[in-house]
């Protein structure tokens, strides 16, 4: 581990590329790629400035140190020089001009990119401490895990995400796909991504939003166009009717308790909108905005007392009996 550490510190960033899912220098989508290009450019220029000025500083400190055999006289006093001041004003002006023009080009390229007809629209609503995800074109609502199609140069299908918030300011950040964009109540921001390959891209809320800001994680799945179409069709189905006895009992419990005030299950009386939509709960890999894997055991523990995983979660413990919890869990796991 120590060797790894030293290597990491010595060789800098490229080494991290393979280790981290959230490295801003391993772009997998068009906006992130343009950002990396201008970032390397900036790093090169600032690196050069550091080498020159830092080098000068070291030289000056060594060259003009007081020697042991110093004669204690004062060195010649120099009070300044207009020519020198002018020259070291003009050089930074030129550098700033170059960096600014490059920056401006990328700002306009990313922010004012034309939206192709083939683009997918998604709406993401930030909540304390989870993400509501809507697909307005196909009447699908899900939570915390955004599915989008892969976009290829031959068949570009970028995803344009409209962002707004139900409560406080959040920020949508998946570093490998794009820079972050704030999720602000009373305001709609837009962000676009165009993942180049299928896979999972991770991120999280990047604006402090309250107690569980740290566990407001975010997952974007880029699917091949076929898989994405299948996923959408599956999400459009109403919830499966319970097959087993336990599940049927669970559904009764679920609908009799306060669960339905906050949660929706498409095709049933449950139509709450305060918490995540549970119609296809089991199609998601994680629970509570990525706080833990979505398994039956975790689900039961979560229903019993959300504080065990996510202390500041706004979901209350309903003080259910063990039987009630088991029944509700048995129902929820049928929501595939």
């Amino acid at each position, binding site marked *: 581990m120590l060797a790894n550490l030293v290597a990491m510190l010595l060789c800098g960033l490229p080494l991290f590329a393979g280790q981290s899912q959230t490295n801003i220098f391993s772009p997998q989508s068009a906006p992130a790629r343009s*950002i990396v290009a201008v970032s390397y450019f900036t790093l090169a220029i600032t690196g050069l400035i*550091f080498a020159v000025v830092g080098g*000068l500083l070291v030289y000056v400190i060594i060259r003009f140190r007081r020697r042991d055999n110093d004669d204690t006289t004062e060195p010649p006093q120099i*009070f300044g020089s207009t020519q020198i001041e002018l020259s070291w004003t003009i050089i930074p002006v030129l550098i700033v001009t170059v960096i600014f023009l490059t920056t401006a080009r990328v700002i306009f390229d990313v922010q004012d990119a034309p939206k192709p007809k083939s683009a997918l629209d998604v709406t993401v609503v930030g909540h*304390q401490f989870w993400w509501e995800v809507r697909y307005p074109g196909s009447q699908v609502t899900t939570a915390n895990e955004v599915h989008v199609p892969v976009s290829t140069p031959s068949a570009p299908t970028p995803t344009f995400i409209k962002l707004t918030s139900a409560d406080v*300011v959040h*920020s949508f950040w998946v570093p490998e796909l794009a820079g972050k964009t*704030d999720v602000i*109540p009373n305001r709609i921001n837009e962000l676009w991504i165009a993942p180049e390959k299928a896979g999972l891209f991770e991120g999280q809320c990047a604006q402090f939003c309250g107690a569980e800001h740290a566990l407001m994680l975010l997952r974007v799945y880029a699917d091949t166009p076929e898989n994405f179409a299948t996923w959408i069709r599956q999400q459009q189905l109403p919830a499966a009717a319970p097959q087993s006895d336990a599940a049927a009992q669970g559904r009764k419990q679920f609908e009799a308790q306060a669960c339905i005030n906050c949660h929706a299950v498409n095709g049933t009386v449950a139509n709450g909108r305060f918490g995540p939509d549970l119609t296809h709960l089991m199609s998601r890999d994680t629970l509570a905005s990525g706080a833990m894997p979505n398994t039956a055991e975790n689900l039961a523990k979560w229903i019993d007392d959300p504080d065990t995983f996510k202390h*500041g979660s706004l979901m209350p413990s309903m003080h259910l009996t063990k039987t009630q919890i088991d029944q509700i869990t048995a129902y929820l796991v049928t929501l595939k």
Partner: protein
Amino acid sequence: MAQRGAAIRQEGKSMSESSMPLPGRLPDAAEQESRADTFGNIVEILHDWVTTVDHKKIGILYILYSLAMLVAGGIEILLIRLQLAGPRLNIIPAEVFNRLFTMHGTTMIFFVAMPIFVGFANYLVPLMLGVRDIAFPRLNAFSFWMTAFGGLLLYYSFLGGDGLQGAGTAPDVGWFAYAPLTERAFSRGHSTDFWALALILSGFGSIGGAINFITTAFCLRCKGMTLFRMPLFVWLMIVSSVLVILAVSPLTAAQAMLLIDRYLGGHFFDTQAGGSATIWMHFFWIFGHPEVYVLIMPAFGIASEVIPVFSRKAIFGYPAMVAASVSIAFVSLSVWAHHMFTIGMSAAGNAFFALSTMIVGIPTGIKIFNWLATLWGGKIRFEVPMLFSLAFLFQFLIAGLTGIMLAVAPFNWQLHNSYFVVAHFHYVIVGAILFMVFAGFYYWYPKVTGRMLDDRLGKLHFWLFVIGFHVTFDVMHIPGILGMPRQIYTYEIDRGWGTLNLIVTIGAFIQAIAIIIFVLNLIVSLFKGKIAGPDPWDAWTLEWTTASPPHDYNFDAEPVVYSARPLWDLKHPDDPD
């Protein structure tokens, strides 16, 4: 020139007889101390300090207060770093963690960095200008007590609720407290009120101090002290004070609006009733960015005093330094929205703020080059104040360059609110500002106490602190690049941030040890330090003509100066400035 030299020689002679006392011709510090015994009992001394309107005593009060707050903010950050030392640790609960980082940020900015420079300036500005006191001594005392009560109110919040977990205790909204998280719907109890009221109170204190420094510098200078003969430290305090007046007022306005929202049914930031979350951001950062320059200007000032003395050369390009500082302040008023590149401004808006931010780099570059040119051709003495100043130059250079990276708006879309930003602004606030605070301590402690700070402890403090600083903040950039947002109390194991955060935590503790050594040095040297004499560094500005510590009303008679370096003229009558 020769004529003027003769005039000064003559004047110097008459000064040594009547007006300005010469170095080494004053009752020394030991003599002064023996007088302290006659002061009477402790109550009288306390009463004297509480009711004082003497700029030197108020300066010391500011500094002691800031040091106490530094310890409080430091303990908070050590707890935070313990919790972040590894992924998914459970040392500090989420709610407490959020309170700790809010208190750490608020404390360090408003109750350490701001008052400590006000303390330095209180002590030094009248001495440097050759006057008896600051312009409005009573306003000065009022300002200090407002600042002090602001901090006490903030810390009372820990007790004001029902313990650390309660709804009515320390604020937990982050130091920039984005609305609507601060509205009553999301922040119940009184924690946010403590925060808002504490900052309003201390804001009045800051503005009072600023008015005092501006007035003193413009209206109360000794004979011959033209504006362009003032020490650069005074110039930079003027610039900093103007920024305080321009920047703190919008913050106070925003806090008032917030309180109106919370208690009088206003809807400025109440998004559920049609208010705007971004209005708060604008108000906060119109304060928040100039605030950085409020803090860095006095640090520049200290650097511009220390670097010439220890390289034995006049500051290079005095007028350019003044001009650069004024233009930094001016431009800094138009850069605030670079904290808001991610809020969905138009492309043109983002481009404007990227440009204005980069332009700050130009006068800043000029300052660094002028310090470099001051070192050039000098005879650099590596005393402790100079060590801190040289480290400052390196660290400020790096902080400036990461600042340019953050000004590149697209790069900022990735780096904003990540640990890269946290590393960047700690490079500024610790690497530049705190380093110059330490340089100031080692440089002027002999003036204030009459005794030198211990050199060996000082060097140990310096090296430990430099090592701790770089272990912490160099490494801290990397988790930011790897996608770690700030203000999170825990993080996932698979993100690859664990080892890096462990190193950062170790660095933080090294810095803490260095600061303990520093505080020890302050205490031990007060009793055991070498007697300093009036001018231990062979310096050139007026404060070094007085006794150490200076007696009441500073100068026996009003000094007369003929250049920016009156003591140089006295010491080199054949070669005056």
